[in-house]
């Protein structure tokens, strides 16, 4: 692809789209020139809003009927029965009586995948670490029919408040919120059947909804996230029951925050990686100076421009018996 006429010049693109140059260079290295160009163009568009219908409050059919009466146009999301894309709405979708009643949650379509992949059961103890604002937590509760138990961890007091508010609005009863540092979870005498770790990240997968991210993070920030994420995942695996399952995800596209974190943890723990049956590219085998664990290719990289949604990295790990 290094033909003179279509060669991507990172400096030119960084000027054209207002990105830090290092980001463009990394995207090219990660996904090639053509895909980078498509990603940058896609990030300038606007995503349709998506909602998750909440069966804790109302059936799919009833909620859809109520929204259609308001002339809100909905479309199905393939593979996610509870997800709907808003094609058009004459009313603000985040302030309808149905929204306030918890009949649905505004949630990105790809962020509905991790809870589905974890597949929690009604009698299980589930950990949701870094849980606020509660989109995935309430999704887990919905998939569990509001039974079983979810322990939702959130370190920030303000974010705990919004988590509590969202869970109450959605009618979630099976959740305990702890204002707690996940890195100390081992101090509590809890062992989980399954854990969802949606780790705090640099957010390079959601530039489409936060253009400030084009310039707000440095490589050093990414490495700081990587260190924190590795600590979170290390602690999480320790409180997982043998045979327990863990889904790790971020809305970052940076290999250090994804494949490298998993590689480092796999060096310490005996875990199996499950192949994910969802659309997306395989996890990277290598990036710059890093050679990743071969099983990391079973992870999925979901790129915004190919999925028409927010970018995600998702991997499912099973702790050996």
């Amino acid at each position: 692809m290094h033909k003179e006429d279509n060669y991507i010049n990172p400096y030119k693109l960084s000027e054209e789209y207002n990105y830090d140059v290092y980001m463009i260079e990394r995207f090219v290295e990660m996904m090639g020139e053509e895909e980078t160009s498509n990603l940058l163009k896609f990030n300038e568009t606007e995503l349709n809003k998506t909602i998750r219908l909440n069966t804790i409050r109302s059936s799919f059919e009833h909620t859809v009927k109520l929204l259609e009466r308001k002339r809100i146009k909905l479309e199905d999301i393939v593979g996610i029965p509870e997800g709907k894309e808003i094609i058009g709405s004459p009313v603000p979708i985040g302030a309808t009586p149905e929204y306030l009643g918890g009949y649905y949650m505004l949630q990105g379509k790809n962020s509905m995948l991790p809870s589905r992949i974890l597949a929690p059961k009604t009698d299980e103890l589930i950990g949701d670490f870094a849980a606020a604002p509660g989109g995935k937590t309430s999704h887990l509760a919905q998939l569990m029919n509001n039974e079983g138990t979810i322990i939702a961890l959130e370190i920030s007091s303000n974010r705990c408040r919004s988590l509590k508010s969202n869970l109450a609005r959605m009618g979630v009863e099976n959740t305990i919120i702890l204002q707690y540092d996940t890195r100390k979870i081992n101090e509590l005498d809890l062992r989980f059947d399954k854990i969802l770790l949606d780790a705090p990240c640099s957010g390079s997968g959601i530039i489409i909804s936060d253009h400030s991210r084009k310039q707000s993070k440095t490589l050093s920030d990414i490495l700081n996230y990587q260190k924190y994420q590795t600590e979170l995942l290390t602690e999480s695996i320790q409180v997982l029951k043998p045979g327990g399952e863990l889904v790790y995800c971020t809305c970052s596209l940076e290999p250090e925050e994804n494949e490298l974190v998993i590689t480092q943890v796999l060096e310490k723990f005996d875990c199996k990686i499950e192949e994910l049956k969802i659309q997306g590219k395989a996890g990277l085998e290598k990036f710059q100076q890093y050679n990743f664990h071969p099983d990391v290719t079973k992870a999925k990289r979901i790129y915004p421009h190919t999925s028409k949604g927010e970018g995600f990295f998702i991997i499912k790990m099973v702790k050996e018996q």
Partner: protein
Amino acid sequence: MSNKTVNFRKTTKTEEEIVRREIEEQFGKKGLDSLQNRLLWMRDGKIKEICALRPNIAKIAKTISHNLYFAGIPIGSIKNDKFHLEIEGSALIRLKSKKVIHIKTDQFLYGKSIFTDNVLRFDEVFKKGDLIIIEGRNNIHYGVGETIISSEELQNSPSNTVIIKGSKNTPKDRGWYLRKGN
């Protein structure tokens, strides 16, 4: 980071009686049935919040209560030895109780008052000073309010008579989630 001023604990016998008495007085035995298979706990801080926990949740909550921010569903708060029913408490009671007034305006969701003219119907008679569950069109739960006039007076009042006073600063209507929730 730790929440030292807040203590999450099981309610005392007295606190539990305060809650149960108020619910029974306002919504009868059916209202109390909504608490079946749920235990009452308190988030004891600046506000004494009451929440309803299922036994399996309470069992785990006991073991980690010193780190707990919240659990179960918030149903109201205790102030000056009186229980104040809030949004989710009234939604829970609604599952058993028909003490409901149906309205045709969304203004209540903005913390505004409900007028005679806004009423579509009510399912049970009510007295002045009663608590009543409020629903909008399509039976969507809006919250709870205290009546200023009785159902009998409502039928003979001018259209601009306030029936239920709105409040922007207390969690009585679902609009509170937008105003204060986050």
